[in-house]
């Protein structure tokens, strides 16, 4: 154990694995954030783009504990709030997605391959949009002068958004999941 620590501590700062790994992780999040406002051809269905942050959270949570997943959901939710509007918040939906994904893998119902990840992303996209729609509905019911439309319109729109987002996100999920997971696996074996 000690020689390993000695060799890593002797490395210059920019070559240490934890630093490289965090740089890559942060860069991938930044990449997802910059993809959010773009509408590239092939990435749009009924005006809805893939939910890149959700794909990232699923990729992160597949092999991690619930707490790690929840923290990732919180951070990315706050980032998305920053890019859109903080009311209602995206943190809740992404935390739910992270925790559910982490729990799902624990029980080993599904194998860890690309198809099952696409399926998880499909289900989680529906979950995330439902959590947002629930928040909007609660706001509509409880706040007196709510700006939101009536409930039937919210849930009609929810159907559209959830379906297009789920289809697009699950199709694009392997593009993000595969390289990220490869990297994290390699980093885990190296360290």
């Amino acid at each position: 154990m000690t020689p390993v620590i000695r060799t890593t501590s002797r490395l210059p700062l920019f070559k240490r694995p934890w630093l490289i790994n965090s740089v890559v992780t942060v860069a991938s999040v930044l990449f997802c954030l910059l993809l959010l406002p773009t509408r590239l051809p092939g990435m749009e269905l009924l005006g809805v783009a893939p939910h890149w942050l959700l794909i990232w959270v699923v990729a992160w949570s597949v092999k991690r504990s619930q707490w790690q997943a929840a923290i990732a959901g919180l951070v990315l939710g706050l980032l998305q709030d920053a890019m859109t509007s903080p009311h209602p918040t995206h943190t809740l939906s992404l935390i739910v997605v992270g925790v559910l994904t982490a729990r799902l893998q624990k029980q080993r119902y599904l194998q860890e391959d690309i198809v099952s990840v696409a399926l998880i992303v499909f289900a989680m996209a529906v979950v995330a949009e439902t959590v947002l729609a629930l928040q909007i509905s609660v706001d509509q019911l409880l706040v007196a002068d709510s700006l939101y439309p009536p409930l039937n319109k919210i849930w009609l729109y929810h159907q559209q958004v959830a379906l297009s987002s789920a289809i697009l996100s699950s199709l694009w999920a392997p593009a993000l999941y595969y390289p990220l997971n490869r990297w994290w696996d390699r980093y885990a074996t190296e360290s």
Partner: protein
Amino acid sequence: MFALRRWWTRHALTTGMVALAISSAWVLRANDGALLYEAYHWVTRPLQPGMSREQQFENSYILELQQRIVELENQNQALQDLSAYENTLPEDGVRAAVIGRGADHWWQHIVLNRGSRQGVAPGHVVTAPGGLVGRVVAVSPNTSRALLVSDPTSRVGAKVSRSRVMGVVRGQSNNRVVMEFFEKLPDAKAGDVVVTSSYSRLYPRDVPIGRIESLDLTKSPAPEATIQLSSPLPILEWVVIHPFEPLESVDIPTLPTAEDQLTPGEARP
């Protein structure tokens, strides 16, 4: 003599063939094998390149230039349209390109490439050829984010231009908006032009929004009209940002102008 004749009868065909072969070879040699090369040309025809390489490159270069001209003409047309539209506006605004869309599925935003450095501030009004687009809700030094009128949380005080009937235009998320009237039996019909009213606190008055597409007078609690927006929100490329001071505080009453106090009967031409 007899011997010669017998030789001839036996070998006439052979001699003829040999003579023909030699003479035809001679003819070919005499004109430098032109016939052979012609034949070679015909046989290898499918393998030959259609045009010389230089010609091909030249042709594709000309095609590229032609296509570039088409693109420049289109760009020029779009900018001329915007410029003509700008000239019709009473105040000058900041011209901005649409560089992004909402980072989420529930909010209808656009991201513009002008920000606080160019004097854009939250509350400024965004229009495009066609009419109202939305208003700026957040700025960074070089970008700004505008909430579209089609967002479900957007409310615009509006009136029907012909009959002065007041209402509120609300977004429907999918690039459609509806207008809710205050009156139970509004004087409005399909095709009427809808503009912002002077009661609107967030938008300047008399900015065109769109036309009434259909009416639903039985809608509860208020009759409703579906509005077709006149600016093409899903395909916007250029917009103009106008400085505007929104009246955020509700305490200050907005005084109706003389125009709005006209009764519907008087306002009609």
